[in-house]
């Protein structure tokens, strides 16, 4: 088959809204775009364990501790589903991890902000996982099969993440004045970084068109951001917290909320590595990877020994 035939077959699959599967032919640019996107997504899940893991030892009750451990464990699982999806495109998980700890690949900049109080655990579940859900639900229909299937698994688990966060916040706002203040202070800190999670405005997002054409992306950054803001406003009202955006107001004509612009300079700085915790996050991930090396080697040595013994037994049986 000529390249033109292959390209035509690929385009036909995409336009019929069918999924591309690992052994299908695909354009190199499509493959590379997916590897970068899935790797970045996987790294985000893995690095995302750190800000929340920070509070496991200090969770205020056994119930909250068990929930938080389960949530952090889920995020590890999300990372692994996604590394597995990336591997179907011909990359090595080990190589991706090395690129992460050498800062040659990035992860979500939301995880470069610190968790300063236990209310942050609730706000991360409510807002950060909430924003992730807005982004991830359309990815369940992504044109690349293994990525779409990983996203379906992930989305099922995310709803627990968001609900446990919201419930935690409900408990706090029904508590003392000090607890209510903690929730408000945490919301104030996380609101803008969360709004920025959807990426730059559409007129500054040059790759969106190609990604949409390929069926990797289904909605623009601003469409998803709007959806998130509209969902968050009534949730904030239910908690009795305010959102720190003076321009946030219902627009009856658009049947949607108008909202202010995030500080895109801050966003660029954090992406470039100047966020409050960039260096720490990567250093910890590196340490965990390096400290785990002997475990990986020992498990391999044990497996080799068992395999050799099994082979030896077979030889004996043959001889007998």
């Amino acid at each position, binding site marked *: 088959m000529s390249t033109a035939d292959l390209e035509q077959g690929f385009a036909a699959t995409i336009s019929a809204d069918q999924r591309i599967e690992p052994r299908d032919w695909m354009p190199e640019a499509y493959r590379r775009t997916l590897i970068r996107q899935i790797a970045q997504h996987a790294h985000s899940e893995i690095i995302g364990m750190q800000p929340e893991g920070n509070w496991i030892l200090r969770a205020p009750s056994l119930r909250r501790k068990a929930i938080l451990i389960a949530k952090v464990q889920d995020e590890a699982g999300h990372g692994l589903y996604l590394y597995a999806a990336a591997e179907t495109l011909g990359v090595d998980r080990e190589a991706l991890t090395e690129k992460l700890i050498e800062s040659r690949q990035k992860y979500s900049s939301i995880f470069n902000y610190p968790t300063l109080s236990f209310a942050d655990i609730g706000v991360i579940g409510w807002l950060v996982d909430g924003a992730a859900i807005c982004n991830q639900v359309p990815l369940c229909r992504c044109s690349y099969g293994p990525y779409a299937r990983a996203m379906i698994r992930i989305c099922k688990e995310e709803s627990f993440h968001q609900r446990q966060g919201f419930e935690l916040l409900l408990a706090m706002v029904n508590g003392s004045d000090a607890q209510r203040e903690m929730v408000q202070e945490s919301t104030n800190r996380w609101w803008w970084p969360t709004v920025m999670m959807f*990426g730059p405005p559409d007129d500054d997002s040059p*790759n969106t068109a190609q990604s949409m054409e390929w069926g990797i992306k289904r909605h623009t950054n601003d469409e998803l951001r709007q959806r998130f803001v509209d969902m968050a406003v009534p949730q904030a009202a239910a908690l009795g917290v305010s959102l720190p955006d003076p321009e946030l107001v219902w627009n009856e004509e658009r049947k949607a909320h108008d909202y202010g612009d995030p500080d895109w300079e801050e966003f660029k700085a954090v992406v470039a590595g100047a966020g409050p915790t960039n260096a720490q996050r990567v250093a910890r991930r590196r340490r965990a990877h390096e400290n785990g090396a002997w475990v990986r080697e020992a498990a391999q040595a044990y497996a080799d020994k068992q395999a050799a013994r099994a082979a030896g037994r077979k030889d004996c049986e043959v001889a007998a």
Partner: protein
Amino acid sequence: MTPADSDGDPTAEGGHDAVPATGVETGAGAGKRRSWPLYEVFVRGRRGLNHVHVGSLHAADAEMALHNARDLYTRRNEGVSIWVVLADDITASSPAEKDPFFAPAGDKVYRHPTFYVIPEEVPHL
């Protein structure tokens, strides 16, 4: 160059956040290293169902693969039985040859019940 290769502007793809994905190294084609082999995982959701492929994972041996599969793919009672299979041991038809490979089934419409016209008034058919 396609737009996806042209610059390092941040994108929000990947569901978690906006970071530059363009121009970032992919590591594709770097070659396999000697790490734990890849296992494909199949889970039987409940009695009466087939094992269904759910994903893959790395493990040093089959026993570890089973344990990891339990922790990774059945954290919420998604299964009553797990199979793990070395990915290298799977023989697959290639989708590129799908037409000739599946052709024997393609022209046998008489294998489907809808092939047979039965008068509507005949019951239980």
